[in-house]
């Protein structure tokens, strides 16, 4: 990894995101993009409005967020100096694509009875629009497509990028995840699943992964994008190596469309460790999927215990979703980015808002704030609806 960029509810860019997780500061707020007063869920993680200053009107929010993150990553990696643009690929994951444009178009069509939709609706809605927007702006002429695997999309995309490099399909890949699901239609649809946070108290304390009194998912938006390069080429050009994607593990639950299974999660973690040639004892930190739903948190805890055995009690397990919410297909990329940034600053991010843990959630969740710790290897877990699991094993440069 030679570049990373992110835009999340914690802020725009690496520096402010890093400061937020170091302070353990949740950035969940009342929904401001539409009037949520008639909704049972009225809070979300929202990126600062200034992220859209100068936004291209021909792109949906989901694509613009990917562009913002990719620009930061590309600048850090000095991507413009690479001369073989046909060896640069792009793969961006998204769970819901151009949801804002879709929602706005349907409101116009069915709500207002206006049959004339914006002419760019299709290119704004399509799931590969973020990948395309990044490819065009960075003249990346190698392989490109989008990945859709619900909440695992970003993690799958980064893993796919590493596989392209290993396979020789590209020397450099711009990879990550993006989602912008804070629209009336999408929030209503999530409400119907009855897994959204419906609290009316302080939004900052609403998202409480692993807590006995957790109250569900807080939706959010954002993007994180990495520049991955073949190690020998990156070193030859003198690029600063931020960390290595040492392993990538995937599995399917093949059991239930929404209920997560600890066996599937465990198999993905084991596959990532095997791929990286790491033993469980080498791993210091896990950035958990940690959604704060009744089902996920104990299932993930059991999976971590199954994989790590006695070492599980020595792991620092964090859910940064407690601070930035669940950015769907972007979440895995955001979480990998946050733990990478923290690793390079010698700490692990905390799990905010955890005071009394669920008895079934009995690991060390770094509940007492950011912890100074030398991390040489960490896992970043994503377990998406549909039973699609993806885990990255990331090691220090």
């Amino acid at each position: 990894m030679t570049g990373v960029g992110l835009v999340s509810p914690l802020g725009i860019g690496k520096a402010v995101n890093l400061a937020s997780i170091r302070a353990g500061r949740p950035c969940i707020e009342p929904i401001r993009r539409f009037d949520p007063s008639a909704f049972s869920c009225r809070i979300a993680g929202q990126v600062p409005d200034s992220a859209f200053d100068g936004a291209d009107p021909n792109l949906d929010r989901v694509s613009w967020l990917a562009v913002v993150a990719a620009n930061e990553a590309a600048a850090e990696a000095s991507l413009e100096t690479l001369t073989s643009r046909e060896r640069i690929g792009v793969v961006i994951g998204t769970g819901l694509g151009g949801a804002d444009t879709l929602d706005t178009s349907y409101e116009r069509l069915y709500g207002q009875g206006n049959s004339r939709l914006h002419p760019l609706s299709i290119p704004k809605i399509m799931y590969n629009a973020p990948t395309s927007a990044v490819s065009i702006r960075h003249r990346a002429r190698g392989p490109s497509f989008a990945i859709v695997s619900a909440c695992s999309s970003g993690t799958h995309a980064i893993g796919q990028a590493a596989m392209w490099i290993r396979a020789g399909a590209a020397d450099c890949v711009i990879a990550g995840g993006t989602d912008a699901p804070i629209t009336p239609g999408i929030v209503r649809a999530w409400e119907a699943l009855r897994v959204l946070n419906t609290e009316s108290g302080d939004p900052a304390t609403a998202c409480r992964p692993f807590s006995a009194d957790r109250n569900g998912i807080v939706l959010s938006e954002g993007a994180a994008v990495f520049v991955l390069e073949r190690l020998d080429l990156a070193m030859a050009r003198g690029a600063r190596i931020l960390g290595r994607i040492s392993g990538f593990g995937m599995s399917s639950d093949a059991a239930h469309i929404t209920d997560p299974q600890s066996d599937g999660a465990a198999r993905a973690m084991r596959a990532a460790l095997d791929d990286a040639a790491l033993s469980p004892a080498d791993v210091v930190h896990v950035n958990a999927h940690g959604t704060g739903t009744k089902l996920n948190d104990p299932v993930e805890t059991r999976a971590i215990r199954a994989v790590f055995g006695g070492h599980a009690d020595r792991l620092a397990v964090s859910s940064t979703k407690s601070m930035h919410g669940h950015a769907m297909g972007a979440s895995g990329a955001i979480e990998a980015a946050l733990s990478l940034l923290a690793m390079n600053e010698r700490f692990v991010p905390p799990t905010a808002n955890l005071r009394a843990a669920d008895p079934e959630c009995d690991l060390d969740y770094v509940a007492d704030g950011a912890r100074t710790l030398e991390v040489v290897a960490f896992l970043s877990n994503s377990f998406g609806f549909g039973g699609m699991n993806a885990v990255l094993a990331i090691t220090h440069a």
Partner: protein
Amino acid sequence: MDRAEISRRIEEILRDQKTLPADPIDPDTPLETFGFDSLDALNIVFALEETFKISISDDEVRDVRSLGRMVEIVEGHLQS
């Protein structure tokens, strides 16, 4: 609405789409000269339909090539 007013409003639409020279837009200059591409043309047609509450046919879309031609198309719709 007279021809001058139609032209003024269309010029506003064009300037919303792209930063153009401050000089008045020559009615016969092809839009491509200003850097408008096929997607820009679709955005312009959409804005014309919204602004003037008209419906531009697919055949007419192909004809949206200059400020002068757009004024004629809009004027035709408003008179009919």
